């Protein structure tokens, strides 16, 4: 007996409520943008400059006492948060301290760190600092620029690739789904105020890759079915293609999520934000390849007759191995 997450033959109508799904996506996109604009992102030091210090002690972390001790140093905006993780030992108490970039300093200020370490040693003598990271404002500015550029270039390259291999309507559909995924991911980081750093950009680009992977598989089937069923409506063909690939879509999402969730639970707190972004991205990406990419394709319409090569629409890259 095989485990089957999706019945052998499905005939869901994915476009019956397309207005609802596109509306929902649009709403989520708007909410994401609104959240990002109003409460902003909780930028890590990679993008904002400043210093983060990870402090470990065998006595419980007293955030208030730490804050009080650090206050007289006048370091500006200081955030102290206790970190919890199932993998910690019983006597392992971890705090994450973040200091803003000090005014008028292009470079990192090590004396500030030294001061802070001494101060904290007074309260918790056995305190250790397993990681200290400082990024100067100059570098963080450049990092944010190159990060934005990376995401934009990735989307552009994908747009061109899909356009070469399929048709422009497919490319727009896929990119619509990608932008949707990226915005929703940024949105949830803003809504939950999870630290947004360089690793999250890597996660974003992976989401771009994953979501695309999904979309391309559906589109590939659409292309095939368009050739096979020349008389059927586009919406019928799309529905059929999504249903045919549904089992695979679910399988792949589940295996990927299995791996990611084990990393989320067991992988330690250092990469938890990163893994969270990917889990969210896989879910959103799977959803969007069906409901955003295909709905967009349906709205845009598509050339039907794939059997005859046309000079105007497809091109020489479209049939490389199909």
């Amino acid at each position, binding site marked *: 007996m*095989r*485990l*089957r*997450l999706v019945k*052998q033959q499905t005939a869901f109508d994915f476009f019956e409520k397309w207005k609802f799904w596109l509306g929902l996506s649009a709403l989520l996109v708007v909410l994401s943008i609104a959240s990002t604009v109003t409460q902003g992102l909780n930028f890590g030091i990679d993008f904002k400059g400043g210093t983060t210090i*990870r402090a470990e002690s065998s006595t419980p972390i007293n955030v208030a006492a730490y804050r009080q001790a650090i206050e007289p140093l006048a370091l500006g905006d200081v955030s102290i948060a206790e970190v919890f993780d199932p*993998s910690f030992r019983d006597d392992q108490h971890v705090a994450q301290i973040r200091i803003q970039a000090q005014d008028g300093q*292009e470079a*990192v200020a*090590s004396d500030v760190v030294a001061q802070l370490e001494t101060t904290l040693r007074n309260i918790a003598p056995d305190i*250790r*600092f*397993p*990681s200290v*990271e*400082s*990024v*100067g404002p100059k570098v963080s500015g450049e990092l944010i620029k*190159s*990060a934005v*550029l990376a995401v934009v*270039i*990735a989307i552009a*390259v994908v747009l061109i*690739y*899909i356009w070469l291999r399929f048709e422009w309507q497919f490319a727009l559909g896929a990119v619509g789904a990608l932008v949707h995924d990226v915005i929703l991911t940024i949105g949830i980081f803003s809504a939950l105020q999870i630290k947004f750093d360089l*690793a999250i*950009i*890597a996660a974003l*680009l992976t989401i*771009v*890759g994953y979501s*695309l992977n*999904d979309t*391309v*598989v559906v589109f*590939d089937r659409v292309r095939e079915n368009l050739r096979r069923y020349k008389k059927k409506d586009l919406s019928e063909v799309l529905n059929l293609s999504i249903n*045919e690939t549904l*089992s*695979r879509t679910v*399988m*792949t999402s*589940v*295996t*990927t*999520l299995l*791996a*990611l*969730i*084990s*990393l989320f639970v067991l*992988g330690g707190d*250092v*990469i938890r934000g*990163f*893994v969270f972004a*990917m889990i969210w991205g896989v879910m959103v990406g799977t959803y969007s390849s069906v409901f955003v990419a295909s709905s967009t394709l349906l709205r845009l319409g598509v050339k039907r007759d794939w059997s005859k090569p046309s000079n105007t629409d497809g091109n020489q890259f479209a049939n*490389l*191995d*199909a």
Partner: protein
Amino acid sequence: MLHIEGWKRVVIWATCALGLLFALPNGFYGQVESYNDAQEVGEEVTGWPSFLPSGLVNLGLDLRGGAHLLGEVKLEEVYTTRLAGFWPEVRNALRKERATIGAIRQQEGGAGELVVRIGNPEKMDRAVDVVQTLARPVASLTGGMTDDIVVTAFGNNLIVSLSEAEQLATDQRTMAQSLEIIRRRVDEAGTREPTIQRQGNDRILIQVPGLGSAQELKDLIGVPALLTFQTVVGRSNNPNGASGVGNELLPAADNPDLYYILDRTPVVTGEELTDAQPSFDQNGRPAVNFRFNTSGARKFGQYTTDHVGDPFAIVLDDEVISAPVIEVPITGGSGIITGNFDVAESTRLATLLRAGSLPASLEFLEERTVGPELGQDSIDAGKIACLVGFAAVLIFMFLSYGTFGIFANIALLINVGLMFGLLSMIGATLTLPGVAGIVLTIGMAVDANVLVFERIREELKTAKGPARAIELGYEKALSAIVDANITTFLTAAILFIMGAGPVKGFAVTLGLGIITSVFTAIFVTRALVVIWFERRKPKTLEV
């Protein structure tokens, strides 16, 4: 019909075997690491058979612990120094023309400028011409030759600055020198496998695994370590006091209220040292012993012979470390620097002096320290997560596809092996996001197999017989596999090009993971299926 030619099978299995062979050393990490270390220093090597590959996946700083620094070299400082050194030449040339251009006087200039006030501004053209004749040719970017200096007139002032071509050439030299000196200093400190890289125009990235803190690294490379021996003209308590022409006012290192007035021109500099060692003075206090080269020894001997009874200053990076009185001429070419040191400081000073001084100062833009325990914690957590995720995927695949699931699982195991093999072969660095990349690849690697298996299921409904269904399944799933993976690979490539540090490591594992997973899905799983099919020759097929 369902057939793979013999030579193809050989290639497929040979590739797998080779990949796994290269991955093998990672299973014995500590052993191979000490073997490699021993081999590097040319010791007798044991503990690892020499016929096996010994490449390892490097662990990034976030996994191994260590210090990371990004420094910016202040290139303009060198321009200023260069022009200051040019001044005597300019002065001599202009003095000969005193009759026409009048008295000349050096002015305070901006960075990278030498400013000279001309007594008779009407004859400025003449002054400019005279200074211009001092220019030396340099190769310019466009291939032709240009002058190394630019001379302009601004009111009464004649301004000399370096030409663009000369600035570029100077920058190249400064960066090369800085890298060399930093490398020497880090090597002197005896740490293993440091990474010292130039980044962009004026930046240097330094990563030293296993170092306790970035501060330690900064102490080692963050100071110019310019040592000079200078004549003491006088002392002062006023930090803003006048020092007089050709002199400079420098603070004492061990006394905040004391300033020395020194002759700007050094008697001897650290450039002329051949050796420096930490030691102790006659009172048992930490000190540094040094030795001059021949010309340095001669100059120093001459000077101390002429100035017995006078104080002279030992200056390090614009601070007077000590200003002893010359009691007897020092002609042996060696001496001792005493000051307010502890043992660690004297050791460091000796290291710095041996390695030489940096041509320009460094400003640190980014520093990261990760403790080795945190790195180890991350590795442990990553390992457990990998194993659990892996097991979950294996079980899930078996439950979903039965026998075919087992084939996919074997392929997945080979896939991870190949990934480590490739990573070791290219000497890639595994970072924490890289570990996440591996876990993600484990999840995604089965995708190609899933695509094929689902397709086979579909084809079984219509095709004639299982062999045809399998064949069609592979054939028709191929375009989806190729398109899906190429697009993901493109994003990995962009990440690699645009990303910094740990993100790059993630991109590498992701990219390699895509290559190996496509290989294993298209070739390895297929070969397994074909072998199975040839033996069993099933009449019906359940996938």
